[in-house]
């Protein structure tokens, strides 16, 4: 078990390292273009040269990478040209806001999708199953920006009961959380529900469930005590991996609702060529993604003893 954990953790760190190299190389291998981005297209060659020299961009790329990595590890993410402040000062509060959004989303999405999935998979091919499957096909087909538009059309334009932006200008407000959370749930719950359904349907067909039913146990008890335990192993992984999808989803949702979160920050950095900020944001996103993948792996192995630790 310890060997397995150690291997997973080492692999996780190696992946993060590899990703950081790729990210750094993509963004910084062409120093000339960095100068153009920062100084503008109408700067002269001499100006660019001086700027590059002054900011240490003329050193070899691996020296710069090691320096960047060292700074990153101690929490010094560099300076943001867009916000004229240290990246760390703006990044952490934004990350907190996104965490809050994710907390609300998962807190509501997980019970809904697990319940729907279990009900659908309980009797495969039943009317409930078909309706839930169809519903999830529809909701996963509507892109986040489209459901954001449609929901704000209904609740903001038409009914006028919810605010259209979620900038928290007057401090935290629950009403401003409703629409962003709703959009994220609508796009994500279908996938989790379908995975739960597939897992539940598979378990319901296994011999031990048939034995339990034929033994004359009440159906409720068979589902609650026998089936659920095994059926919920696969959805666990899916739910943890949803965090990766959520990181994509928050970019759209935060941008649309002007929510001051991490995704909107990354986008703003990208649109304004704020190199240090892009690097820090992308790196944090990857750390979260790779970290959750490792947790999903370890958790799955822990929950499913049939998988040997190798």
């Amino acid at each position, binding site marked *: 078990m310890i060997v397995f954990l150690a291997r997973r953790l080492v692999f996780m760190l190696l*992946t993060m390292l*590899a*990703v950081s190299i*790729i*990210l750094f190389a*993509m*963004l910084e291998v062409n120093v000339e273009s960095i100068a153009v981005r920062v100084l503008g297209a109408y700067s002269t060659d001499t100006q660019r040269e001086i700027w590059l020299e002054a900011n240490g961009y003329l050193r070899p790329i691996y020296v710069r990478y090691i320096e960047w990595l060292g700074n990153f590890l101690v929490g010094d993410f560099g300076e943001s040209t867009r916000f004229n402040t240290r990246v760390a000062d703006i990044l952490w509060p934004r990350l907190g806001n996104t965490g809050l959004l994710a907390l609300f989303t998962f807190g509501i999405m997980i019970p809904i999708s697990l319940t729907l999935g279990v009900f659908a998979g309980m009797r495969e091919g039943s009317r409930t199953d078909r309706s839930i*499957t*169809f519903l999830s*096909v*529809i909701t*996963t*087909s*509507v*892109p*986040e*920006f*489209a459901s954001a*538009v*449609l929901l*704000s*059309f209904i609740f*903001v*334009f038409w009914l006028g009961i919810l605010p*259209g932006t979620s900038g928290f200008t007057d401090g935290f407000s629950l009403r401003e959380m409703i629409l962003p959370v709703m959009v994220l749930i609508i796009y994500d719950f279908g996938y989790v529900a379908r995975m739960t359904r597939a897992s539940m349907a598979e378990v319901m067909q296994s011999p031990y469930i048939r034995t339990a039913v034929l033994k004359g146990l009440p159906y409720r008890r068979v589902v609650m005590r026998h089936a659920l335990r095994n059926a919920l192993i696969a959805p666990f992984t899916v739910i943890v991996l949803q965090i*990766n*999808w959520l*990181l*994509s*989803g928050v*970019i*759209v949702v935060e*941008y*649309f609702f002007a929510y001051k979160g991490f995704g909107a920050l*990354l*986008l703003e950095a*990208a*649109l304004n*060529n704020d190199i240090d900020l*892009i690097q820090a*944001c*992308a790196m944090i*996103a*990857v750390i979260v*993604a*790779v970290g959750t*993948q490792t947790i999903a792996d370890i958790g799955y192995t822990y929950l499913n003893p049939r998988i040997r630790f190798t």
Partner: protein
Amino acid sequence: MTDQTFETGPGGAEERRPNALIRGLKTLALLRESWMASIGIGIVIFWVLVAILAPVLAPYPYEQQIGPLVNAEPGTCAEPDRPYFTDEGMERTTGDECYLLGGDNLGRDILSRIIWGARPILIWAPLATLLAYTAGIFLGLLAGYKRGWLDDILSRVSDIILSFPVLVLYVVLITVVGRSNINILLAVTFASAPGIMRIVRGLVLDLRNRDYVAAAQTRGESSWYIMFVEILPNARGPLIVDACLRLGYTIITLGVLGFLGLGLPPPDPNWGNLIAENRTVALTSPQSVVFPCIAISSLVLGLNMLADGLREISLKD
């Protein structure tokens, strides 16, 4: 080498080939078994026809701005004798200019823009998916059939690319390479080929131990022949379902990129751009964003229903 002695070998495949058209029709007829698949293919065909017939269907050129119809509500007509500008100079409205779905923030016909917008989506999304599939199938076959160090390297690299949150990867890639059609094509390929590779590899790992592969190996066929002629056609079922889903997802991606201002460059009327351009007036004249949203959602829904129906049909067999 006598081909005739192998009934399931390449000779057998060639004998069946004249029936390809009939087999294709039979496959289409199979779709009727699932109402989901039928509706799905119906929606997809509808949008393909719209894209092809855009010059006939669109009531106005998609860039035509008629000033008096800025942010017009659906179904409104311009008041007669109001001035507006075209490429040729100033013109006056006759009162016959009617926008069925309303006008956008520059006075362009939303209906025409949606009709024309089907084209870039239905050209670039399938192209990107095709490119990603070509790369993914090639690498997946290599990794799954050759195994060894090649498999290790390819799997590790794909793990690393897949560990990126997709949209973060797109945002970074497009920041670096700039927004143009080709760059978006390459970015989509780069981001989705590893996923396809993983699926193909999994299928190949299962198929490479079949008897017909062993037979081909004994005949002394080259590994390319075995990979592409023996293994690939037998892996097509799951791949077709995945392709439908992935095409839908690519369409969403193009829409999202357009919406975020990173997509196909303007004045392209792709649906994501339409929503992005009118975002500022979304709450005062919602028709300019609601209709493109319905368009893109319905197309993706069609593809997802098709994929779901196909999977259902394939499970029945």
